[in-house]
């Protein structure tokens, strides 16, 4: 039996779902936010008498 040939020339690009780039970016954005907050509060504490 002849197979029906699928002529799909254009391939849909599927992003690799195992990529962790976005996760890495969000972890570092959150991390930097926490560090900036911590350092600014610590500076406030050191600067005051």
């Amino acid at each position, binding site marked *: 039996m002849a197979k029906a040939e699928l002529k799909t020339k254009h391939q849909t690009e599927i992003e690799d779902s195992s990529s*962790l*780039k976005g*996760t*890495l970016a969000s*972890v*570092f954005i959150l*991390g930097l936010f*926490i*560090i900036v907050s*911590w350092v600014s509060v*610590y500076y406030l*504490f050191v600067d*005051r*008498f």
Partner: protein
Amino acid sequence: MHMHKFEKIWLTFGIGCLVVFLTVVGVSAFYLGNKPASCLTTINPEKVDTTKPFDKPGLHKVEGKEWDYELVFVASAFSYNPAKVEVPLGAKVKVIATTKDVVHGFEMAGTNINMMLEPGYVSEYTTTFDKAGEFLVVCNEYCGTGHHLMFSKIEVVK
């Protein structure tokens, strides 16, 4: 165990931050000797007026101690004694405070002097007054109907 390269990066970053933060807190507590303001010294709250040093509230020069002055405050509903005090700029001062009745707060606005005053306990904080100006002392523990009227002033003068 397989671990993604990125996972290793953020775990190192996270654990590293934790180590740094805890080290700073540890050095502050164990090397610099920072501690909570309530120093576990007890006092009979009914005899505050006759107990030293609270029988003479205000600023006193002291000799032979690590600090130059002792600033004694007595809080009661709804005022502080003294109501206004002058401290010379650059003086190393030990602030000693207690309350005669209920729990009061002792916050010198814009500084690190921020203590809770509990009946029966003495709170203290030692620091160098290195900024001139007039500072407001407010009660930040709700103590009753006159809570918002309870304040004192500390003037740091040259």
